[in-house]
């Protein structure tokens, strides 16, 4: 960042965040955690995988985000016959003014700032992997020529967890490139009523622009300046290492329920996202609470359950909760009914 940070920048950050949320609320009813997580990921510069059953608003949320951030938006519907070139673009033969034929690169939909990879697990692994380079390096290589993508660049992918026939589960390498995996749940009765009422008027998104690309990049730079105390940084690293069953300090839950743990990208994502969350909360430092809250969307797709966990119906979120509880006793809310049930089962310590 070239210019000196000042009070106004911090105020603008807060205002813009509030504005982004209020605009998204116009199109998306409920799903606050998903919206919150998606915005954090976008400010932090990460990709997001949205998982949910059909009809819960995944695509609408992404379309709304495209409008709110005033960024070029492209939607790719992933199907089994989708080819990599359909994503990245390809060289085609065109005739110039003199009538000579030549190859000309025709950019694919990936050359946008916000990519909606709808039902990403329906495409073949070959097509899925066409996103790898773009997601990590923000470049696309076609016919030996690398082309840089616009900044900011985000992939917001969706997948359906129940229809597994004819799908291709995302490889671990691809999963690791998503900063967050957010679970989009069914709306409750009130939210459902609001959705029905809203869509009776119009199916069109009504959100207005709240932030442009430049402002978004500025927000990202501001978030990067947030200080992280050494104790907090240590805790973040402990959290990541604890998920690795074969590490020096694995958590008991990891040893028991996990095949493998999170990669170093998880550590990077934790700190980057935690800084954004801290600023959104009006703090100028990262707290343990930021890390504990963000551990779920950051770690849940990076850890792999073993057979024992599957047979005991343990979810990745359960394991993450156990790890947090082990590293930071008392963090489990004993007023929560679900937690209490699991405490009784011996999953969490009181």
């Amino acid at each position: 960042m070239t210019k000196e940070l000042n009070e106004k920048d911090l105020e603008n950050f807060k205002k813009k965040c509030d504005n982004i949320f209020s605009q998204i609320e116009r199109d998306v009813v409920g799903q606050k955690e998903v919206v919150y997580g998606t915005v954090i990921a976008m400010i932090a510069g990460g990709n997001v995988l949205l998982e949910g059953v059909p009809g819960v608003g995944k695509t609408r949320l992404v379309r709304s985000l495209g409008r709110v951030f005033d960024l070029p938006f492209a939607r790719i519907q992933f199907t089994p016959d989708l080819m990599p070139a359909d994503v990245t673009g390809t060289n085609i033969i065109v005739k110039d003014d003199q009538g000579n034929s030549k190859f000309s690169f025709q950019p694919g939909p990936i050359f946008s700032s916000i990519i909606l990879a709808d039902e990403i697990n329906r495409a073949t692994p070959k097509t899925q992997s066409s996103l790898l380079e773009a997601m990590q390096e923000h470049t696309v290589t076609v016919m030996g020529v690398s082309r840089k993508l616009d900044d900011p660049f985000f992939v917001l992918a969706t997948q359906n967890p129940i229809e597994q026939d004819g799908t291709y589960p995302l490889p671990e390498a691809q999963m690791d490139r998503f900063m967050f995996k957010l679970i989009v749940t069914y709306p409750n009765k009130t939210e459902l009523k609001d959705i029905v009422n809203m869509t009776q008027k119009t199916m069109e998104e009504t959100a207005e622009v709240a932030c442009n690309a430049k402002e978004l990049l500025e927000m990202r730079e501001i978030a990067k300046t947030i200080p992280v105390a050494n104790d907090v940084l240590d805790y973040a690293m402990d959290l990541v290492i604890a998920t690795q069953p074969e590490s020096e300090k694995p958590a008991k839950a990891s040893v028991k329920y996990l095949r493998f743990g999170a990669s170093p990208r998880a550590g990077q994502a934790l700190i980057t996202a935690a800084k954004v969350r801290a600023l959104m909360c009006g703090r100028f430092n990262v707290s343990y609470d930021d890390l504990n809250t963000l551990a779920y969307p950051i770690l849940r797709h990076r850890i792999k359950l073993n057979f024992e966990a599957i047979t005991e119906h343990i979810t990745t979120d359960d394991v993450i909760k156990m790890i947090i509880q082990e590293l930071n006793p008392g963090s489990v809310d004993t007023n929560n009914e679900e937690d209490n049930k699991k405490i009784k089962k011996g999953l969490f310590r009181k």
Partner: protein
Amino acid sequence: MPEKEKLTKYLKKLKIEAIIKSVIFGLIAFFAVVLLSSLILFIAHTKNILISIILGTIVGIVSGILIFRFKYKPTILMTARRVDSLGLDERAITMVEFLDKEEFIYKKQREDTIEKLDTISEKSLKMRLSKPALIILGVAMILALSSFALPNLSSETSSSNNASVPSSVEVPPSQTDDSTSELTEEEIIQQLLEKLRELIEKSAVDREFKDQLYAVVDKLEVDLKSLSTLEEKINLIETTREEIQKMIEEELLRLSVGRCLKQYDITRELGSAILAATADESKLEQVAIALENIKTKLKISENYEEDLETLIEALNEAINTATKEENEALIQALSNFRDQLVASPQSKKHIRKLEKEDLDIVFEDASNEIQDALKKSPDDTEEKQGDASQDTEDLGKDLDDALQDAQDKLTDLNQKKDDDGNEDDDNNEDSGNTSGGEDGGDNPPPKFDEGDIDSDTVIDGNTPYLDVFDSSREEIEEYLAEHEDLPEDVRKAIEAYLEMLKVK
């Protein structure tokens, strides 16, 4: 720095907490050391509370200071961590860590932290004392204080001595200390009687004999009721205890003597008779019969000397089984018997064996003495069931009398032998006959000259054998060397005799 000053008030509070924790730790160390040292001193019978307290104080202070210095002493970072736990979301710790940073975001962070710090009350920082530590302190304190109540063995011994209570019968420490006494006089007496019964039960005598001793204790219990003061009662118990102990020793001695004699063919019958001996006349007669049989066997024996030597050997071994009790009546009787058989081996004047014609008188005396000694054993149930104190006195008197009788008889016999020996010497000198001859006893070895022997030698049967044997042997060897005219057979007989007497 104002930021640090904001944390100073919390730092002071944490210092107080750290001091309290260190004191708790020091107290735990103090009580633990007091407890341990008390136990060690108690085991070593040198219990001294002051030593335990001094040692505990030193260890407690040192450990308290060390634990404060290296573990609990709060730093500004530790303070920040504690303050953050009040809901500051790691603001304080971040502020402390980046105090030297001057960028805008750090300043903003510090401002935010101070603003938050102002909203929380100093009182909300509660003191955190470890519950397990407090529980350990409580337990250590109770144990250490209870260790002070351990009985002081050294003082117990001295108080026991003051009250003339036997050390072998353990008396409760409070027995002679009225101020601390919680036991009644009756309980003390009962404890002492119980100890007596334990003494009897632990002894290695047979059940029948134990029952007789129990009867003595029962009688003692009845007699104690007629006494008025505790001191009198304790004295009576002490006297009875000594007597019971003596009875047990005598019984054990009788058994060991009997078993020892049974090992030899010649004394097997006598050993069995002694083992079976009670105050019953018929059983005592068995002893007389056994002795009579031995005497008869010796008289008709073709190897008289050899058999006599075996008898002496058997008696010697039986006597040696009772090194401490050599003054007991039975041992004394056996010693006298043995001495008469060898004509007192301690005497430098008599180095010869008993002749056959003397057997009658020696065996008669021995029979009487042994029977007397056995009669005085505690097998006399009727006597034992009589008055305990009187019984004890009678028993002691009887034993003393028996001992005195035996000594008198021994003296008489020695005197008689001396006279016989002088006469023989005279005869030998006159006739010049120095040969042993076929019949052996007819020609005893020559007596030493008066000048070679110390005439003041005490022949009382009590002089330790080993004290005189070597010197006597040297004297005899010198005598043999000087008197080359002694016949070879006499010389060999003397050497054989000395060899026989040699301790094996």
